[in-house]
């Protein structure tokens, strides 16, 4: 009883929120520090770009993991952080793009243009980032209220987005399929779980209707 009160104490909830908020900035702080101290080797531009892209993916996957974790394991406490994690995914994807633009192509317009028209892996990455933006913008409570049922529909865009990101990574590998195997199987579980739940619900509904 006391414990439960303590667990839901506003101060603790606030602390949790801040801890996660700051923890999600650590990757950015770390890679900046590494770059600052010349610890990234001969090609820091590529290292930074890759690292930020990886974290965009981890956070996007993280935001997708929350519903299955809540439903399957009863981890209800995570639900509060879903928006923050999703927004951080957008944030890291944006820094990933900024790193690419600044460090790799030096904002040369001609290079950006060929990248966006000829490199298929960049086209799907850019599409994923573009689609993430409306989700970020409408992530607030206000928009949720305003859009009502539409909001849920809109935010289901995250499923095709995650598949675009997976495609982005599939198309940039040269030899080792390890990362793609890992990301792909995690995504397969998380999306598969949702499909399975939905099928079950539908089955149950039709069973109750026919009885």
């Amino acid at each position, binding site marked *: 009883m006391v414990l439960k009160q303590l667990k839901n104490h506003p101060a603790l909830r606030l602390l949790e929120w801040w801890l996660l908020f700051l923890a999600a900035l650590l990757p950015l702080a770390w890679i900046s520090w590494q770059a600052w101290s010349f610890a990234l*080797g*001969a090609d820091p531009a*590529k290292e930074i770009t890759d690292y930020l892209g990886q974290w965009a993916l981890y956070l996007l996957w993280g935001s997708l993991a929350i519903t299955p974790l809540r439903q399957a394991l009863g981890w209800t406490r995570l639900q509060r952080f879903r928006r923050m994690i999703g927004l951080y995914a957008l944030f890291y994807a944006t820094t990933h793009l900024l790193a690419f633009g600044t460090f790799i192509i*030096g904002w040369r317009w001609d290079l950006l243009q060929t990248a966006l028209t000829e*490199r298929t892996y960049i086209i799907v990455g850019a599409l994923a980032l573009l689609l993430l933006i409306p989700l970020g913008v409408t992530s607030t409570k206000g928009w949720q209220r305003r859009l009502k049922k539409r909001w849920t529909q809109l935010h289901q865009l995250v499923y095709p987005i995650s598949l675009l990101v997976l495609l982005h990574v599939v*198309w940039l590998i040269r*030899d*080792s*399929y390890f990362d793609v195997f890992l990301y792909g199987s995690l995504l397969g579980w998380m999306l598969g779980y949702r499909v399975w739940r939905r099928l079950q619900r539908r089955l149950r509904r039709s069973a109750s209707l026919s009885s």
Partner: protein
Amino acid sequence: MLIKKPTLIRPSEITPPSAYLNRRQFMQGLAGTAAFAASASALALPAPQFDKGLPVYAGPDWLQQQLRAGVSNKALSTDEKVAPYQHAIRHNNFYEFGTGKGDPAKNAQDFITDPWSVEISGEVNRPGTIGLEDLIKPHQLEERIVRLRCVEAWSMVLPFVGVSLATLLKQFEPTSKAKYVEFTTLNDPKQMPGQRSVFSSLDWPYVEALRMDEAMHPLAFMAVGMYGNALPPQNGAPLRLVLPWKYGFKWVKSIVGIRFTETMPATTWNKMAAQEYGFFANVNPAVSHPRWSQATERRLPSSLFRPNIIDTQPFNGYGDEVAHLYSDLDLKKWF
């Protein structure tokens, strides 16, 4: 025979190769003060940066002796700025030791490169297995400073020490049937973690090949050293190709086999994705790879906020020397 690991010695213990003596003395005089800045000077051969405790690879004694007697081939060297040693030994594509650029420097340090031998086979009058010392000993070593252009659209300027490939190959007397020559990297999953990976899509051993006239071209080079010392294991010790007009993946590392053939050999990257990696793999800004435009390259090291982007030259800038080899080929088709 006793298997000796490549010994790591501190730079200060090295007896400087006579050809580079002045340079070394100059560098050592600066050690501990501003050696870093000295590597940016106009001299042709920047020595390793002494004040950083970087590993230097001495190789076997006979090789050290021969390196010391090496000469610089100015005619076949670029005067562009050589990459700092620390980057050359830590930014490697050598998938046998991992796919990350830093993996080979981590995973190859115990790689045994002495003793070493090479099997010569196929269309030659003098096939057989030859020890590295016997292979290299008869030749004067020379240094060439060349541009390495990776298919991933980055490049570096590196000083290699070795022997012209033609000189090396002629001693085996290729027959008139020899139209191609194929080079094979060591296949040793025990030592090479990348060859044990179940997620790799490459076939081991690594094989790349040249047409005979390419192999006999004066620019084709077999390296045994780098930066005035032996090749580090992560850079393909003890024996690797240097083919400045071709993408880096043709520069086969840690070679154990040289085979002369009448027909075009199947090569590693071409087998994996023929539409992406051609047999010739000549540097060509007009033919893009699906993942990289080849029109420009990033010369490394490069500043973060002002990336060092330069236009890629046909044949990596060696067109005057080698373009005639391909005068009858459609380079868009035979990329």
